[in-house]
């Protein structure tokens, strides 16, 4: 009985756009949904460091190197903000990381694609970050306070990421024929996986119902995907690259682009672990975590000794 009353009060707050804070009562399902979504988001930022990290040592100029490095560093930072937000829901970072490493938690499938050429740094920044930004701008208005605050911070910092990628693409598109070919190839490989980042169509998305009702998600997968496509098509035209979708057409009546059929078999295949890099990404993460274990133990032991000293003194 009391729960029903609490639930009504909770929904009333959500409907009035009052943010939910960590100590507020919340339905268990809401908590679980957030734990899953925020940690998945955090894991994506952290795993997302790897495909771009693949090119730091080979960045073709010192400027390109510092820019890429700063960008990947931001991603680590964003992972950190998001783990912090997820921790306010009563689970430790250790637990979340264990869920990632034991494959109980997912991360965005886009990071299971390899970065094969330098142009991929352009494509990742322009398309992958571009898609992520559309989603994150929307999530700034999410109902959970810590998540929303993390998103505000992240959006502020991300503003240079997409520009960095687009700059690489634009530069290569007007470079040597080889460079232009590399840029087009990167666009060809990353276009479809990028628009899959928004997840299945609304009709096939089981979690959307509650997430929208609780205002965790403010816009649906298809709405966000459409926004991304509409703003990206023109950007490709400006730099003379072709989006690899023959069905892409401006629809005057709807005021947006129609696009071709998404290959959902590929999407689910990668989600299930069969992408080109799923195993590699996870292995890398586990290895780094294991290699750091003695360091973390040492730091904890040192801190314990310092505390003891303070007590004695």
């Amino acid at each position, binding site marked *: 009985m009391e729960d029903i009353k609490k639930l009504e009060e909770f929904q009333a707050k959500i409907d009035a756009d009052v943010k939910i*804070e960590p*100590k507020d009562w919340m339905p268990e399902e809401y908590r679980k949904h957030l734990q899953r979504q925020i940690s998945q988001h955090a894991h994506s930022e952290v795993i997302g460091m790897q495909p771009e990290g693949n090119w730091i040592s080979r960045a073709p100029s010192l400027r390109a190197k510092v820019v890429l490095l700063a960008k990947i560093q931001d991603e680590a930072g964003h992972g950190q903000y998001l783990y*912090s937000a997820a921790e306010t829901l*009563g689970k430790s970072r250790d637990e979340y990381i264990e869920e990632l490493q034991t494959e109980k938690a997912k991360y965005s499938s886009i990071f299971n694609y390899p970065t094969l050429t330098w142009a991929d740094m352009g494509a990742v920044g322009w398309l992958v970050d571009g898609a992520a930004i559309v989603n994150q701008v929307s999530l700034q208005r999410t109902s959970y306070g810590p998540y929303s605050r*993390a998103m505000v911070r992240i959006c502020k910092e991300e503003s240079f990421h997409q520009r960095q990628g687009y700059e690489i693409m634009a530069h290569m598109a007007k470079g040597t024929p080889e460079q232009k070919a590399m840029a087009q190839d990167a666009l060809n490989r990353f276009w479809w996986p990028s628009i899959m980042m928004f997840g299945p169509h609304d009709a096939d998305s089981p979690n959307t119902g509650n997430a929208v009702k609780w205002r965790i998600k403010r816009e649906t997968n298809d709405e966000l995907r459409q926004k991304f496509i509409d703003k990206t098509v023109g950007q490709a035209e400006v730099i003379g690259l072709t989006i690899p979708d023959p069905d892409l057409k401006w629809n005057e009546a709807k005021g947006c682009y129609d696009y071709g059929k998404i290959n959902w078999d590929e999407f689910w295949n990668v989600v299930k672990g069969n992408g080109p890099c799923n195993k590699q990404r996870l292995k890398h993460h586990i290895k780094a975590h294991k290699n750091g274990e003695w360091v973390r133990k040492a*730091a904890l032991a040192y*801190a314990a000794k310092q505390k003891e000293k303070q007590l004695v003194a």
Partner: protein
Amino acid sequence: MSNIKDSQGDVWEVFVQSKPGLPHKHAGSVHATDKEMALQNARDMYTRRNEGTCLWVVPLNAIVSSMPEDSGSFFDPADDKAYRHPTHYIMPEGAKHI
């Protein structure tokens, strides 16, 4: 607030002063095993873009927070004390600088 045990250290809350004269504002948190590490991590996490001139780090478990159920008795009684605000007072017409 309680700290959950974590191999990556405790949670510390970070407060950044963006300019001398301004109050320190909550920026977020970091994990760290000791106070020097907390301070350095806060520096590397939250002041990379020139955001700060001073940093505070506070162990999360040292922060005492009011609870949502307190909020009625804590904060609502302030609702009807309009006399604490300058707009409550009616000044004679023509009075200036007051």
